[in-house]
């Protein structure tokens, strides 16, 4: 992130956003944007795109207009990628570059076991956002010799396709999701 904000404008943004959740303060690099501000901004974009794709593309075309299917094997089935896949593909493209941040979609009830909580921060964070609806979780953690600002945001079932797909998947460990439930969490990491 090469964008730099003045200290004053950063303060205004922080004040506007408020620190509404479990937060471990982390210092901003001198003259730079605070990790939390950057993480919240990234999440705002991610969740907006994810919601638009889920509601206006997948749910509309699959559930309402019934013109195409969404499938995990979307290439073979000539179907739409699932919203979670769309999200993951984006994170993999980011991971191919040197963007200096990473994000993942994780859950305590993942379809793919690789997306289960693994680090202590992930375990604590996912439990926190499930136990405290509407709140985010912020902390710092050390992984592979680097310290990260780690944020965990609730990933909520926003459309019928979210719950129907997860509840009916043969690899799901949970079959009773409802719209509005926290199904998992978006984890953003920024090295500090």
């Amino acid at each position, binding site marked *: 992130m090469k964008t730099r904000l003045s200290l004053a404008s950063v303060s205004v943004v922080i004040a506007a956003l408020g620190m509404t959740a479990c937060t471990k303060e982390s210092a901003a690099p001198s003259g730079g944007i605070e990790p939390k501000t950057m993480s919240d901004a990234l999440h705002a974009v991610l969740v907006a795109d994810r919601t638009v794709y889920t509601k206006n593309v997948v749910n509309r075309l699959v559930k309402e207009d019934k013109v195409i299917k969404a499938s995990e094997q979307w290439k073979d089935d000539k179907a739409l990628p699932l919203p979670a896949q769309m999200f993951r593909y984006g994170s993999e493209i980011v991971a191919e570059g040197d963007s200096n941040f990473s994000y993942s979609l994780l859950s305590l009830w993942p379809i793919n*076991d690789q997306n289960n909580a693994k680090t202590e921060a992930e375990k604590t964070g996912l439990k926190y956002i499930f136990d405290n609806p509407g709140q985010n979780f912020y902390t710092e953690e050390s992984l592979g*010799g680097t310290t990260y600002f780690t944020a965990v945001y609730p990933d909520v079932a926003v459309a019928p396709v979210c719950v129907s797909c997860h509840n009916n998947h*043969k690899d799901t460990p949970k079959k009773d999701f409802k719209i509005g439930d926290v199904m998992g969490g978006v984890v953003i990491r920024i090295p500090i």
Partner: protein
Amino acid sequence: MTFTIAMAMYYFNALTGDEKNDFLPGNTSDGHYQIENKCDTCHGDGFDDRETLQKSCVRCHKQELKMIEDSHPKSKFTNPRNADRIKILDARYCVTCHVEHKTGKTRAMGVSLPEDYCFLCHENVEKKRPSHKGMGYETCDDAGCHNYHDNKALYEEFLVKHNDEDKYLPEMKLPVKNIKAVFRGRDEKFTKSLSIADIDSPRGVVVSQKISYQWHASSHSKSGVNCQECHLSVNEKKNVNEKKEWLFKPNYKHCEKCHLQETKGFLQSRHGMRLAEGLPAMQVKDARLKMHESAKDKVLNCQSCHSDHSFNTEKAAIDSCLSCHADDHSNAYKKSKHYRAFLSSMNGKDDSKESVTCAGCHLPRVASQEDGVKRILVDHNQNNYLRPNEKMIRSVCMNCHGLKFSLESLADRKLILNNFTGEPSIENKGFALAMEREALKRKGLIKEKN
């Protein structure tokens, strides 16, 4: 003194010339020995670090990994949450698993790691897949179960979808090339058929009767491609003042003008990879596979398979291959059912002129899009369909055969050697496991085992 000078000259030549064998620390793998004398292809300028090596790997293999939808791309391991994993196996770098110059330690596909590498991350597989309990680490890639990179024909839903397929599919047909239609759609000149009287060789160049007839019978004359299209020098620097010269022996750069995709594949292939690196072309005697002694001095370029002027693709698809390759699999081809199918198609008993040849399987016809135009062209890079051999299941075998039969046949070494004469003796257990889970899913009985 004389001895010292001679030694100095020898090592100077060895270091600066194409022959650097004396400096190789160990044998290179079957996939890289062709270019082993050009150290900088992989090592860059100064035998730098693994970042340099990684860039070299990616430069040649990126497209291939994209095509197969790599199951373990680097991007999965750069996420900090996998820091613990890369400590055990740093999968961000190709050289973690594929170290070159490891004589005696390099296994198939250039893998230099011990066989149990899957377990380093998937040791708890039986938690999610109880059916895998007790399976040894050496069974992961058994009979077409799993690959590290390419699982396009092996994933569970694919097995379920194709479980009921018979040995022979109801419609057995290889894709038909559409190169003529593509060219004719691109430029009207390719629709014009030329006669011998149209030959446009310059004054002073004598075209023999044999060459004239070969060209006239070829697809080139029927598609308006005259002598000058191939024999005039290629203006590589796009210099408007450069005068084009007549070349008696055009090279791949001339073919590339029209056959870009085909040439690109050839330059990535085992046949052409030396040319791509600016090295002298491969000769048959350089091969590690068994070849005919009589072919040892043959040089590998476009014409060595397609022959100048006649460009007979049928000859290129069988006879050219068998004129060099002398291993058991190649030698058994003309006794195989595949060859009988080819003869049958040539006798007009089959509607399709595209049949099972050496090239039909190893340099198959594949569909691609260019400028919105769908093209079915021959992929001249056999690496895309070679090892692991499950790479050829979808693009080749499944044009005619069911998935299970295909996987079991390719897992049977004896069948490969006799060119698939007989039935597979190996059972792929993946289908039974996949169908078992499918049945449980339908009953709603699959539960996480804690």
